[in-house]
């Protein structure tokens, strides 16, 4: 009877070997990381208690502090995020046009634009902020440029992708009328990517609100400066107020972006 029974396995032996290999490498990597990372056991055991202690010291938040500087810093953060997004577009649009292979026919220029976009994306906004603080000195100007330079890569990449996906028909038709290249792009390509364009702008603005809140930690302006001061002076009730303010502005930005996006599409 048993000889008649057919066997069934979910995977072929090779697939099973592959799976085990992947599982094993993941486990090995984790074990390696766990064994050699410098975690002090006393800290680990202590952590929940310390976190609770911190939360207790944060409560109740010093809400009166909001009018004594937090508000101004919050508005500055909003300015940094908005201007940073705007500036990033000024540089990202030409780079996106150069990077899109159906708009710019030169392979060299494509690769060059891509390289600049990748570099911009690979450096975090906080690192950009460190660089611009070294260039402009501490303050909101450094923050604005940090946000702008981090956003160029993101915006440029998405715009270039949107450009590469447009249908070539309208461009061809406009070129056939004898229109100059710039007019072809304005009247043939722009209408096709306009929804994507505004979508990217809103998306990045939302991210930049979050990012600009931390730039002050390295002296690049905004609410992060106030947060850093409060933390350094162990004024935890003020820290709580600032965190609430950040939380609320982030949530409001997200709601605004979702609403506007729904109307765009």
């Amino acid at each position: 009877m048993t000889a008649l029974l057919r066997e069934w396995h979910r995977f072929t032996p090779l697939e099973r070997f592959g799976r085990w290999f992947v599982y094993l490498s993941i486990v090995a990597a984790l074990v390696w990381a766990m064994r050699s990372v410098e975690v002090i056991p006393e800290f680990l055991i202590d952590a929940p208690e310390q976190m609770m202690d911190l939360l207790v010291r944060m409560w109740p938040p010093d809400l009166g502090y909001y009018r004594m500087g937090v508000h101004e810093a919050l508005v500055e953060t909003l300015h940094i995020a908005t201007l940073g997004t705007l500036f990033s577009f000024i540089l990202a649009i030409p780079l996106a046009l150069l990077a899109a292979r159906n708009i710019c026919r030169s392979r060299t220029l494509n690769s060059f634009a891509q390289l600049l976009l990748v570099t911009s994306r690979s450096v975090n906004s906080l690192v950009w902020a460190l660089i611009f603080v070294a260039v402009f000195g501490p303050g909101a100007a450094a923050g604005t440029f940090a946000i702008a330079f981090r956003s160029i890569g993101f915006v440029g990449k998405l715009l270039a992708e949107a450009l590469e996906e447009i249908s070539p028909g309208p461009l061809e038709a406009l070129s056939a009328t004898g229109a100059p290249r710039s007019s072809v792009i304005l009247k043939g390509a722009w209408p096709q990517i306009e929804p994507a364009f505004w979508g990217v702008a809103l998306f990045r603005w939302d991210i930049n609100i979050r990012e600009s809140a931390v730039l002050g930690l390295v002296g690049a302006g905004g609410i992060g400066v106030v947060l850093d001061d409060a933390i350094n002076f162990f004024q935890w009730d003020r820290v709580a107020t600032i965190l609430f303010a950040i939380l609320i502005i982030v949530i409001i930005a997200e709601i605004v972006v979702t609403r506007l996006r729904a109307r765009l599409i």
Partner: protein
Amino acid sequence: MSSFPIRSRAFPPNWPMRLIGVLFVAYTLYAMSRLDLTWARFSIGMGEASRFLARMWPPNFTRWELLAEGLIESVQIALLSSALGIILALPLGLMAARNLAPKPLTMLTRGFIAFCRSLHYVIVAILFVKAIGFGALAGIAALTIASVGFIAKLFAEAIEEVSMKQVEAIRATGAGPAAVILYGILPQVASRFLGFSLYQLDSNLRNSTLVGIVGAGGIGGTLFAAFKRFDYDFVAAILMTIIAMIFLAEVVSGRIRAALR
């Protein structure tokens, strides 16, 4: 009203849009004046930038041991926080999916996930540094929270998009709730879950190079120290290493995600 020759204007003016445009330009000018962004400042900055770039070149790799040490710690932070985040996100995602879990549970879980996402990981890292001390542990904790927020949210959304017909068919066989999830839901979302996890590992690699700036371990600490000491050639070396690693990770995870599809 109808007496106006509407057809004669090919491009009727869009007054609301014009108004928005004018307001936006006005805001931009106002904000620039508030932030003290002037041309004079910009041109001074340009001069500083060229000096800065000149001091960065050539990058100085003589302290490569310090660099490697920081980089390895960053990778370890990224690996551990991704693993913890993925493990925690799996049940949370199931609990947050409105087509699976009862409403009070989804509301509670969604609130928790939203909380995890709302604060920037660097801020979370500072809080952990202050609470549990300097070092990699704070970085791991901060990035774990960020990972949970990201993966659990997308995972819950993916579950809510599954075809309920397949789920219904499995339920009709008399399978229990766990088996329904295992056969009806997970096969539909497994590849997307893996995709989210890989993406998060990728971003944790980037972010783990940064949490060191606030003392939460990894190469960020080395970088920040170099900045403070104006060791700009070492800064250049660190930045180039970080960019190379991120670029490599992006290529590898892009390949894996393409293969999963």
